[in-house]
């Protein structure tokens, strides 16, 4: 069983399972949207004293926090028991692009040492990349009213034009970062 689950899962397994998670959450009376948890965390930390945006009923979002706790556990289980080899098989084109950017050992693990190596935590530039990247995701997700799960999966499934606009935005931002900004940073 473990050997059967251990190789990387193909897209035609992952995509349908993500749809299954979305439908299960709908059936249980909720809706799929991970970035809402960031708002709940702000509210729990006392952000409601600074903005009405965080005056929310935290109890109504408890299920989502439990879902996220489960996803952390899912990552832990995958790492401990289902991933004997953490190498990611990349296309030759990607490996070459990364070499040109100065990223060595592309695909040796899930994340590049150049951004996520533990030594990045002791350099200003390394910390800035992590913090600013996170801030853009958090700010952008709330401004757009959802992230990949809320807009790209839930919203597009419900044929929402606003979600399509948001997903187009995700791609404009992503393409700008990868093709114009990253060559300047790295």
């Amino acid at each position: 069983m473990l050997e059967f689950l251990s190789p990387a899962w193909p897209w035609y397994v992952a995509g349908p399972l993500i749809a299954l998670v979305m439908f299960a959450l709908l059936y249980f009376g909720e809706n799929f949207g991970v970035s809402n948890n960031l708002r709940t965390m702000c509210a729990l930390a006392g952000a409601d004293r600074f903005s009405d945006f965080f005056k929310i009923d935290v109890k109504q979002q408890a299920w989502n926090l439990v879902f996220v706790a489960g996803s952390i556990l899912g990552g832990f289980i995958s790492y401990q028991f289902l991933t004997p080899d953490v190498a990611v098989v990349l296309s030759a084109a990607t490996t070459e692009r990364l070499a040109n950017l100065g990223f060595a050992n592309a695909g040796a693990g899930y994340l590049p040492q150049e951004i996520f190596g533990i030594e990045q935590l002791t350099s200003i530039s390394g910390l800035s990349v992590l913090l600013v990247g996170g801030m853009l995701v958090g700010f952008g997700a709330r401004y757009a009213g959802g992230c990949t799960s809320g807009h790209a999966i839930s919203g597009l499934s419900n044929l929402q034009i606003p979600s399509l606009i948001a997903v187009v935005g995700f791609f404009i931002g992503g393409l700008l970062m990868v093709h114009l900004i990253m060559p300047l940073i790295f």
Partner: protein
Amino acid sequence: MKYIKFLLLGILFGMVMAKAEIISWYRIFEMFNFDAFHMYGVIGSAVILGIIGVQLLKKTKAKSLYGEALHLNPKTMGVYRYLLGGILFGLGWALVGACPGPMFVLLGYGYVPILVVLLGAVMGTFLYGLLRSKLPH
């Protein structure tokens, strides 16, 4: 007890994110370079099944387990917030190679620096709350 099902769904979601390598920075980089079909297959197949399923649920007026209408949450129309918010989100997604779901999954994977990314994401959310009334929506 009513929360167990959400914990189990979260575990499944985390395992899918991890085992299909959706949490890998490299897969996001590859996607934005159009070098591989993988991420397009993941999102595309989820959305196609999602569209079919949601249409069926609407046609049959399906109810939740508790007999309520489904929380399909239609989005209010607008352009600025979705386009500008989306672009900012995309810039961050490509830089750190993780959207909110994978950030949490990576925590379970034991990558300590993702904590800084998560802290940034919470700070960014807080900043939006502070600036919301001054932004075009």
